[in-house]
């Protein structure tokens, strides 16, 4: 038995252990395959440009009386930008988004489990009592193009 063989054997044992201790559920692959159905070819992606949660703690900390931390995010695509504020309220998330640069005529919030239509008064979108999880906004504009914000975790 040489050293290389020993290394391989030890790594093999570790691999077997990992599969026992930290098995990957089958649902992980199933969910990833099913995700293909979520692709939207008719909408342009509004990329996440800024997320205060990605900043070092304190750098962009914003506090409001009685609300705790406000998380600020910013998305952008061409003429469009979306400024989003997320706050915690009663164990759920409260979202306020301001759409800038385009005339938004319809909007919806998609989560892992569903979708809710939002009012679009003056380009302000409000979604209350959103459970923690992954979300993205669907935006329809007056002059045609549709936009989708990049998925975020709230």
């Amino acid at each position, binding site marked *: 038995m040489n050293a290389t063989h020993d*290394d391989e054997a030890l790594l093999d044992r570790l691999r077997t*252990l990992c599969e026992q*201790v930290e098995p990957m559920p089958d649902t992980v692959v199933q969910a990833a395959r099913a995700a293909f159905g979520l692709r939207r070819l008719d909408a342009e992606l509004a990329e996440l440009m800024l997320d205060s*949660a990605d900043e070092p703690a304190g750098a962009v900390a914003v506090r409001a009386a009685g609300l705790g931390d406000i998380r600020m995010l910013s998305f952008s695509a061409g003429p469009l930008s979306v400024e989003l504020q997320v706050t915690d309220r009663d164990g759920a998330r409260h979202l306020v988004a301001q759409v800038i640069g385009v005339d938004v005529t319809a909007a919806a919030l998609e989560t892992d489990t569903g979708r809710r239509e939002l009012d679009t008064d003056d380009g302000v979108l409000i979604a209350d009592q959103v459970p923690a999880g992954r979300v993205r906004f669907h935006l329809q504009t007056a002059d045609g193009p549709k936009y989708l914000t990049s998925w975020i975790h709230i």
Partner: protein
Amino acid sequence: MSDPSYATGVLLKQASDGDQRAWDELVNRFTRLLWSVARAHRLDTPDAADAVQTTWLRLLEHLDRIADPERLVSWLVTTMRRECLRTLRRTGRERLHAPGETFEPPDPADAADVGLILAERDAMLWTAFDRMPERCRKLLRLLMTSPPPPYEAVATLLDMPIGSIGPTRKRCLSNLRAQLEQMDGPLDGGPASEER
């Protein structure tokens, strides 16, 4: 049916053109690696599953925009690492906000649980592995993925030159072996049942 030997770049192009089978093949090929990255960051099962899914959703968002399709695996692990760090920050924040709790890095499998499912020798190896320096543990966790990830992806993840992966792997494994010998006399390299 997509040929498993197809180059990643071809599968990416087919998936971008709407081919679900090409997408499935990409998922089959790389999900286990993404899972290893999550585990290397000590995410627990629900968080690991969630971060893997977010990474695949990010690829869907960028399917037409991957600059260098042949380097998809590096793109995936880099994206996955970012999602892991976000998850750790988020779970850390949530714990900090929970009254009376202090933040500790999530521990995917605590020693007592491991003792229940593993034979004593294996439990000892697992404990020794779990206590390794972060860099060694991450490196070995990635290298033991089946099939083994390209060294290029490992180098990207660990910010390590490709040339030092082999020597570091060797050093980490001898450290692990030394740890085990301290815990329980000499270790045979093979399975616990194998007589030397």
